């Protein structure tokens, strides 16, 4: 028998290490060390009910276990084989006790559709993909469905583009299918440029065939025989695995001429991006593939009408494609049963920032931010306070406490001033200054703007400068009005999605954290203590023991004081590098 004790940060905060010790002691005392083994594990993603103990092989799941419960668990469960009823999880809906973790609804928080094979199969071995139903959807579509029927299935599934815009995938295919042309193209957008999102990279590295299979299906539906994958050159591993996958699929005849005897030809080539965020926009992406500067052009014409080399082109992103084979294998109806009314299926999020379980998760649409952050994500790092969660990358917004129970889907996020985006989810804590966060995103947009249209080229620069002024305590209230007006105009007048959404980080932080802006402007104060110009470092006399650690580590030698004497900081020299605070073991340095 094994007793697994959660050693995740959340559970450790509620004394799981003592629980572990107690359990081990009990096992020892009862002389069960031969039969019962106590081990710690990583986070179960259920921190709210921590600490957690799971007993296997019977999969009993104890929640909110205290160190004092150790004796009873060992005595009852290990010795007598009886579960400790009072520690079992109670289903919040039907109020029933659940013993077996497999029946717990909480495990349904994550469903892996797009990530179904990631971490399970060897991405460099096509046989493993084939054994996992690989290319079966393609086979079915090519031999049993007409292009119209296959497209209809996609429409019925309700799948929406996972790259950010959320346009219905089936409809997109249908439009491209109806434009007559001698040559059409299927393009996979793998230019994942959103800082903090890496699901596309993971899918390509973990399950490249699923994307290839979907592209063939897409080609069949719209009448394209050529596929192009536009991938960031910064993803060498993904590129390599894609190349291997393409080679293997060709060898099996799953790409190339007359696929599975259907008479349908389709092949895939790789094109490389070269580091331009704006190339995530489909017209810019197409120009880049044509060897041009990746500047977007006005739509219409849409790529479905005139895309790569002027031919009808359908562009979907990696995650969208990764969903496609499953939809045909399990049916549009099944897919549409997951998620919310207007957003079907699941979404992959890259959880990052000040959160315990940084990682990739895939959740059904409609789950709340709270569930994602505090349950799956294991809560905030180092026991700090949750401050904001940023979704949608540079196009999205910062959401706060009051949005935590908003069900996540395309429309809800848009309604609260953010965006689904490609699925980056960055969690921030009390030490993060929201004005600086907005500035960080604007810095990104300024650097990534293509410069073609004036509002984005000049406007974002001015937004950045205004924010910079605020973080330096040099702004007045009129600047705040200008900041808002400028944001609205940039949103209203920019040529492409990049400019149209770039003010979102500003607008959402202004909406949700206005008091923080006002502190900077009216009191020249940064509540999070992160704006260098608005803070100073002081030594707290009561705590200083004169260990000289701060003085020794100060890069500009602005701390003076004899050994065992109170130290002082010369504010005129201090560069606010934070070294003294990091080095002080006595909490004697503080940010004022």
């Amino acid at each position, binding site marked *: 028998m094994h007793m697994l004790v959660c050693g995740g940060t959340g559970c450790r905060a509620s004394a799981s290490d003592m629980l572990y010790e107690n359990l081990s002691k009990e096992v020892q005392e009862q002389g069960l060390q031969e039969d019962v083994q106590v081990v710690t594990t990583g986070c179960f993603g259920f921190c709210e009910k921590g600490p957690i103990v799971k007993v296997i092989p019977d999969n009993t799941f104890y929640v909110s276990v205290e160190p004092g419960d150790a004796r009873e668990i060992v005595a009852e469960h290990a010795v007598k084989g009886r579960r400790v009823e009072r520690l079992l999880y109670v289903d919040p809906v039907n109020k029933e006790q659940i013993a077996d973790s497999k029946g717990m609804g909480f495990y349904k928080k994550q469903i892996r559709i797009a990530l179904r094979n990631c971490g399970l199969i060897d991405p460099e071995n096509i046989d493993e993909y084939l054994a996992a139903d690989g290319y079966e959807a393609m086979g079915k579509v090519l031999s049993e469905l007409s292009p119209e029927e296959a497209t209809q299935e996609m429409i019925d599934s309700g799948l929406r583009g996972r790259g950010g815009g959320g346009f219905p995938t089936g409809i997109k295919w249908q439009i491209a299918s109806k434009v007559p042309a001698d040559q059409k193209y299927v393009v996979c957008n793998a230019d*994942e*440029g*959103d*800082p*903090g*999102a*890496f699901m596309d*990279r*993971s899918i390509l590295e973990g399950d490249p065939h699923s994307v290839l299979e979907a592209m063939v299906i897409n080609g069949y539906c719209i009448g394209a025989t050529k596929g192009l994958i536009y991938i960031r*050159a*910064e*993803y060498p591993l993904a590129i390599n695995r894609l190349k291997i996958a393409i080679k293997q699929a060709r060898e099996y005849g799953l790409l190339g001429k007359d696929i599975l005897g259907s008479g349908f030809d389709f092949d895939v080539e790789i*094109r*490389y*991006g*070269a*580091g*331009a*965020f704006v190339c995530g926009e489909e017209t810019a992406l197409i120009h*880049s*593939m*044509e*060897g*041009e*500067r*990746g*500047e977007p052009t006005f739509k219409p014409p849409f790529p479905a009408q005139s895309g790569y*080399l002027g031919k009808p082109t359908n562009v979907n992103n990696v995650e969208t494609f990764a969903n496609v084979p499953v939809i045909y294998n399990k049916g549009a109806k099944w897919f549409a049963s997951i998620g919310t009314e207007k957003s079907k299926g699941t979404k992959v999020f*890259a959880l*990052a*920032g*000040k959160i315990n379980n*940084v*990682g990739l998760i895939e959740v059904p649409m409609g789950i709340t931010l709270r569930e994602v952050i505090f349950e799956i994500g294991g809560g905030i790092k180092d026991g700090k306070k949750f401050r904001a969660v*940023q979704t949608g*990358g540079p196009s999205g917004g910062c959401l706060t406490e009051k949005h935590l129970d908003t069900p996540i889907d395309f429309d809800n996020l848009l309604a609260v001033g953010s965006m689904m985006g490609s699925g*980056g989810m*960055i969690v*921030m804590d009390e030490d*993060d200054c929201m004005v600086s*966060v907005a500035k*960080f*995103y604007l810095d*990104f947009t300024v650097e990534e703007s*293509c410069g073609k249209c004036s509002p984005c080229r000049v406007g974002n620069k001015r937004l950045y400068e205004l924010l910079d002024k605020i973080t330096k305590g040099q702004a007045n209230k009129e600047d705040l009005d200008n900041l808002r007006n400028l944001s609205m105009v940039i949103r209203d007048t920019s040529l492409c999605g990049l400019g149209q959404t770039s003010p979102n980080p500003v607008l959402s932080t202004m909406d949700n954290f206005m008091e923080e802006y006002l502190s900077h402007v009216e009191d020249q104060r940064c509540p999070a203590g992160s704006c260098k110009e608005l803070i100073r470092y002081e030594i707290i006399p009561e705590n200083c023991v004169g260990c000289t650690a701060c003085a020794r580590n100060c*890069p500009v030698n602005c701390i003076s004081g004899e050994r065992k004497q109170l130290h002082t900081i010369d504010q005129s020299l201090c560069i606010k*590098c*934070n*070294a003294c605070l*990091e080095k002080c073991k006595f909490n004697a340095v503080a940010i004022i």
Partner: protein
Amino acid sequence: MTSIKLKLKESDVQQLKKVAKSFNNEPGELINVLHKAQEIFGYLPAEVQEVVAQELNVSVAKVYGVVTFYSFFTMLPRGRYPISICTGTACYVRGAEKVLDEFKRLLKVPVGETTPDGKFSITCLRCVGACGLAPVVMVGDKTYGRVTTDGVKDILKEYEDVE
């Protein structure tokens, strides 16, 4: 304008011409050819861009326009140990800026430049997709995760004696 023209190695130029040919000297393959050119020469000085323009029959201005549009392309030679600091959001909120400052302080060069001995260069890059390890620093192909300001000098130390 620089009056001294850089001399390119003939074998490198031949290789570049071969690459262009393998792409059928198609103007549309400009970016692919530039990627290969950067692999061959390590960077894309004006002289290399002129060869590319000639081989693909596009204007040099266009080649330069494309090179300066994409951040992956560089016209300056990188250090023998190019240091890239990820400044994606995850790394940013976990202190990438301080790590960057420390590199700049220790190497005494700004972002985008190379130390006078040609050993190190500093660049910033956007999200390598290793957010779990934030903040992330890459030196050449090697990735360092969870880098602290203290860790910076240890990273540099690794390259102290290799030459």
